């Protein structure tokens, strides 16, 4: 996929590129001061939670190229851990931390047996684990089984606290993604995605790298689950552990642009804001629409929204410039990369 080839201009745009997100963040911070209605606050809260999970999935799926169909496991485990801890009288923020740790530990259960092997084992195991965990949670008496679990928190419910918690968490997830992408660790992950054997030859240990990426992603997802559980105050296995939760977490970064930084944010935002309208208007077919979306994205624009925008900008740029000099409008790198891709496709 395309993101490996574009890093040349990355440092140059970094400063210019930092302006819009900082602006956006400031707007989101001050927005509640101007009397955002409870409905919008809730919608934005949910959107931040989704953006966090979307960024988290992208660390493993986008950077390291390991598709997981089971992130609801971490989301749900985080939710339940936070719920149990808060009910035990632990400070909510500490409870979120515990949620992250639990989810991270659980990620090892899937990662240890599967990451050692090459092949489709990991993706297969994630479907299995999400089924297994939901079955166990549906039957577990401590957490109320299928009938769900209620969180009782003393003190007044202040929606704005939840809003800022979720916003802060999404910010942290974004910073983590940015940091990983620029670090040696992130480059190692991308190397594994592009060619696992070559990466191993270059001194990257695929097993530990994949395991760490999985743990980081699981921790963020678990915390997001905890934050959501505290807000919702009632969770049940067929909500947080549901298959469609996994589907949602997987779809957002892909719709936005897999392997990029802003793709998952965009995907999460679109999903968070559109999801309710979509369910309200098309209760029967919203998952069908997502499936069609997924197929179309994979077949026509694997870069998602970000890829589309990028193409659009390139096209505008090309139209503006005189196309006499460089008839293709592509740099030497791009030409070489395209040639390589065409060759790979032929095999």
């Amino acid at each position, binding site marked *: 996929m395309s993101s490996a080839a574009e890093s040349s201009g990355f440092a140059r745009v970094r400063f210019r590129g930092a302006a819009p997100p900082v602006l956006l963040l400031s707007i989101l911070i001050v927005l509640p001061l101007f009397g955002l209605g409870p409905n919008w606050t809730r919608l934005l809260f949910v959107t931040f939670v989704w953006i966090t999970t979307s960024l988290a999935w992208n660390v493993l799926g986008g950077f390291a190229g390991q598709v997981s169909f089971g992130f609801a496991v971490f989301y749900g485990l985080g939710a339940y851990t936070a719920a149990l801890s808060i009910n035990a009288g632990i400070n909510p923020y500490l409870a979120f931390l515990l949620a992250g740790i639990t989810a991270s530990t659980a990620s090892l259960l899937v990662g240890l047996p599967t990451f050692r092997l090459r092949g489709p084992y990991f993706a297969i195991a994630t479907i299995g684990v999400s*089924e297994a965990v939901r079955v166990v949670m549906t039957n577990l008496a401590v957490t109320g089984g299928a009938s769900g679990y209620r969180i009782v928190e003393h003190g007044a419910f202040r929606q704005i606290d939840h809003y800022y918690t979720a916003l802060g968490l999404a910010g942290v997830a974004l910073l983590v993604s940015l940091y990983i992408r620029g670090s040696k660790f992130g480059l190692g992950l991308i190397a594994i995605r592009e060619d696992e054997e070559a990466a191993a030859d270059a001194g990257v240990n695929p097993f530990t790298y994949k395991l760490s990426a999985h743990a980081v992603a699981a921790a963020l997802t678990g915390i997001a689950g905890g934050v959501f559980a505290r807000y919702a105050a009632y969770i049940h296995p067929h909500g947080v552990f549901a298959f469609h939760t996994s589907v949602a977490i997987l779809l957002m970064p892909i719709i936005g642009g897999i392997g990029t930084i802003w793709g998952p944010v965009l995907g999460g935002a679109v999903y968070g804001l559109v999801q309710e309208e979509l369910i309200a208007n098309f209760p029967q077919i919203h998952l069908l629409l997502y499936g069609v979306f997924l197929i179309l994205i994979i*077949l026509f624009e694997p870069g998602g929204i970000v890829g589309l925008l990028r193409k659009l900008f390139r096209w505008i740029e090309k139209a503006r410039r005189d196309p006499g000099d460089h008839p293709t409008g592509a740099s030497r790198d791009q030409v070489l990369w395209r040639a390589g891709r065409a060759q790979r496709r032929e095999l």
Partner: protein
Amino acid sequence: MSAADLLNLLIAALLLAGTYAAMSVGMTVIYGVMKIVNLAHAGFMMLGAYFVYELFSRFRLDPLVGVLLAFPTFFLIGVAVHWLLVRWIPASDQPTLSSLLLMFGLWLVLQNIGYLVWGNSDRSILTPRTLLTLHIGPINVPAVRLVVFLAAAGSLAALEFALHKTWFGRSVRALMQNRYAGRLVGINVERTARLTFGLGIAFAGAAGGLLAMLYSFSPDFGRAFLIRAFVIIVLGGLESFSGVAIGATILALVETFSILVLPAGYQPAIAFALLVVALVVLPGGVASLLTKRLRLA
């Protein structure tokens, strides 16, 4: 628990294994030739179940005839799906991100078309055979299970014959071993892949029809069986047909006898537990264990 009860359980497990093998073999051929993990298998199994159900409820067609009709119907569907979607994704000798996601998207589409058309209530196929039981001494065999087992075994035998005695089967086996070498000796890879995909989907649809005779089903029908199919082909070593038979037997035995120690509610988790055990203990599957033994001998 008497010896007769244990014997009954054993027979039930072995009869189940036949159906499990029929359901997994479609995934194995597709994986073997194209290195695509067909997540949409679950969706096609569900469609197969409803296909047989519709034929039965509208035209009073015997479910067995329905299953027989499902083979060509789903073969054509599979070929069409390959032509429409699958052939566009780049070929690889490893399962790729795009192939996984494409098949996953297809599964979502099929499942939700199922919900649109049939709603989410459970359906089942009831024939006079359903409640009939054969008594042989102390052994009781539910007739429908025996019939389903025989149908599954028959289809597997036909597949085995096709794979070993036809030109198409030879090219399938060659491509499973080495795609590039297969192309070098003149196999039309594109055509073989298309037919293989059709074959895999045909088995998915037929297995769905067979399972519909045993269990009630809803549009979410395939999911629980998808994981079982995964476990079976991982146990079998992903690309081996004899491995599929062994994997199916192991899973059926473990599932059936687990009733003795575990509450039935936990049963869906067993397949996953077995998957983890298989990955830790013998990642190459039973087949690799056997070949290692043979090489040693």
